[in-house]
């Protein structure tokens, strides 16, 4: 129930939010706070504008004070740029890498032990089928070059993976069991 509610909220917010722009350029002016006569709290000091023209990045254009002669000499305006598309690409890349690693880790932790335990029986079964079946299996047995290549690639990959697992096992033994390194 709560979940549904929160999803609705989420949707609502998504719809409700106006399309605010995330520009790559800005003009930022920092001025001393001017205290109004009435309020005790000083008001805004930072003025940001989406001006794309660096020449327009001045206090007069951005802050638009009532008395420019007084305020503007004390303001500092800076034209700044950033690259949101780089950030976007990098963050999406990171999410992909982390989720891939996570899925692979789940595979190694959960499925792999199951697969590793099964093969003895599984292979026996397959052998029997080969003996029983007639033409299709013999066809399969005949060397299909592309299939053989595929198999050799798979073999190589499994070999590599086995080797890698061995080294990780060894590293784990060094660090977690024997505490010989990286304490």
């Amino acid at each position, binding site marked *: 129930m709560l979940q549904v509610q*929160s999803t609705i*909220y*989420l949707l609502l*917010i*998504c719809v409700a*939010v106006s*399309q*605010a*722009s*995330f*520009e790559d*350029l*800005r003009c930022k002016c*920092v*001025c*001393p*706070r001017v*205290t109004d006569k009435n309020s005790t709290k*000083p008001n*805004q*000091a*930072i*003025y*940001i*504008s*989406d001006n794309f023209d660096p020449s327009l990045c001045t206090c007069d254009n951005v802050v638009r004070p009532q008395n420019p002669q007084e305020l503007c000499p*004390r303001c500092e305006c800076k034209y*700044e740029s*950033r*690259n*949101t598309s*780089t*950030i*976007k690409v*990098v*963050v*999406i*890349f*990171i999410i992909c*890498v*982390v989720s891939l*690693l*996570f899925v692979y*880790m789940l595979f*190694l*932790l959960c499925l792999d032990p199951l697969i590793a335990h099964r093969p003895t029986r599984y292979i026996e079964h397959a052998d029997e089928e080969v003996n029983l079946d007639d033409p299709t299996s013999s066809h399969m047995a005949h060397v299909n070059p592309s299939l053989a290549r595929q198999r050799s690639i798979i073999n190589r990959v499994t070999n590599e993976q086995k080797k*890698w697992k061995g*080294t*990780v096992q060894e*590293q*784990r033994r*060094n*660090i*977690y069991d024997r*505490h*010989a*390194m*990286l*304490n």
Partner: protein
Amino acid sequence: MAQFTMETDALLVDYNYMENHDPKTRQATDDVGNSTRLNNGGATSYHESVISATSGSDDEAMLDIAMDGRDDQGLNDDHVQGSTNFLETQDDLPVSSGQYEDFHTIDWLRDIARDRMRHRHIIKNKQDGCIPKIKSAHDAWSGWVCVLLVGVSAGVCAGIIDIGTTWMSDLKQGICLEAFWLNREQCCWSGNATTFDDEGGCSQWYTWSKLFGVSSSKGGSYIIGYLLYIVWALIFGAIAALFVRVFAPYACGSGIPEIKTILSGFIIRGYLGKWTLLVKSVGMMLAVAAGLSLGKEGPFVHVACCCGNIFSYLFPKYGRNEAKKREILSAASAAGVSVAFGAPIGGVLFSLEEVSYYFPLKTLWRSFFCALMAAFVLRSINPFGNDHLVMFYIDYNEPWYIQELIPFIFLGALGGIYGWFFIKFNIKWCKYRKTSSLGKYPIIEVLIVVFVTALLSFPNSYTRMNGSELIRLLVQRCGPEDSTELCDYSRNMTNDHPYMGSAIASDGVIRAVWKLALALLFKSLITIFTFGIKVPCGLFIPSMAVGAILGRVMGIGVEQLVMAYPNSPLFSNMCQSRQICTVTPGLYAMVGAAAALGGVTRMTVSLVVIMFELTGGLQYIVPMMAAAMTSKWVGDALGREGIYDAHIALNGYPYLDSKEEFTHQTIAADVMRPRCWRYGLEVRNDPPLCVITQDSMTVDEIEGILKTTEHNGFPVVVSRESQYLVGFVLRRDLNLAIANALKNQEGIVSNSPVYFASHNTHNPHGPLGLKLRKILDLAPITITDHTPMETVVEMFRKLGLRQTLVTHNGRLLGIITKKDVLRHIAQLQNQDPENILFN
């Protein structure tokens, strides 16, 4: 396909590489053997062999051509004697395969000699035409290309990690709904409608409580924020710890102690591999995002070194020679610090002062180039959107006054005391973890630390933000744009420049000081337990944060003192007219950060240069130097070693520190194995020295020795009675040579005699002899038994020896290995010598 025409009699095939299970490669080995044998049978004085080798991957790497160390004289000599009916095939064995086993020390002299031979060979071939000329040119510039690639990749890695870390850290508190890839600061970067709320958020930034629609009640939103903060922290921490455990256990820790050990000439296979790079980069982001009190700056060195190692394999000159590879790694570690602090020169000095062991001038140039490239690439990525390479930097230019040196020096002393305190208790805790059952639950430990950190750090706004942000806040000057409580001064707004100079603190500053004091206590304690848990963790940022808090608090104190007595003669030059006094608490924070970092790591020059590059001017170099020097002096007075050396000692890595002096009056005979000679029968159950005679042993006997012992090399003597030294042969070479001869060479049986001598006393009736002179190192470093250990230690340090032989009146007496030297030093320092684990 690689094709080499050779005019020397030394044809060296890298058997180690050949051992890899490629059947094609095996075929190639056999071909090599055959062609050589044929040619050797002929009466030509120089063998000409054409080797064609086909290998799957890198042909260049397959054949490692080198020449034997002998000069022409020796070659002719050999030929004259060898032109009997004797088979010389085994003359053509590798001098050294250049490969070492895991956890072995490298022999610098041997590796550098191998490189020189390779170089000589290329120079010699240069005249032969166009292709060798191109090859020689490629060889000449490969070092620069390699460091260029390393620099670029280190910069890219750092950029990705920087962006990812800030994004993930902010994910704990909220999300930028319209552009989820932006962190809070970037989310509120643009837009004229931007208004900031209390926590620096804006309308586009949704905190979790706001997203779940509980922003109305203040208490509810706090609780939701708190809970989600802890949950996210636990998720990030758990993923980081699991990744490290499942994919690359070597990715945990800071990595600098291990890099130091590796650069001093030690092999840790897989420590600088691809998986370590990937998991360390990802783990760093996750660990920092989990809010742990650790930084990503230290591990950048490890990441850059991984890049260095991976790229060095593109260039066989570096990839296949461990001593040369370390030149690239030195440059890479400079690039690591360069991207961590945006300080290329500081990086080079860090590499020189702290990490590197062998640092020729050539490497200095390359390190500088590498560090600059890395900084340039990172600058182009602009990860923080502030045109700087780091989050925290100083962009103001306030003056400082001579009296302020007193608080700066005091800060330095406090930094030194903090460093000593941190090292002492961190090492104690790590020792406890190593020996007790706590070490059996690494992931649970990480989760507990994450939970405690998150639980305690959320209530305090200064610990809630991550370390870099905290430092940025603390080193900043209070300007008009700051509305935080740290900048809550009662300023006279009617002045022309109300933000110039100091002011009297209001309540906000007092509150901030209290919070900072609590943050200081919390950070300094939790870092002790955090550094060393099994996730990637560096300690530059936490120590700097502690120092910065200390500095800021002290800065505020001095500021208020000066403001309270502006007319006192002590402060008269600090205050200009109309009571405008200039004390910048932000500068104190920076000085404090330098002091604490100096106290923990005991860096000096590199630290000051890093700080000077962070502050962007020479103006503050004197305060930094004063603090860094005091911190080092105080730290050294309290405890001898820095955190990295302490961790090296804790782990028992075979690191021969070149900074420490050896002052004991022992001599070589006290250290060498076997030790029976000096003390007679008293000291002894040491087995006698295991030697090989030059011409009276059979293949069987040698195989027996190889089976029963575990030494990495054997001295070769004229005979057991005389014990006159001939040379030194490595176990690995011996193994390969014998196995190869038994397999490929006809007539070699188990009772064939083995000859290391240049003259052949061949018995025509017996079985064919096996000639192994090629694998014999005829110029091993020897010392006499009365050589003082000071000299021996210097030789080991400066020449990078792996072992030296001890002689007496020209007779072989014993052997000293690097491990023996390390054990001896440990013993003299009243440490447990058995702590040094590796070979």
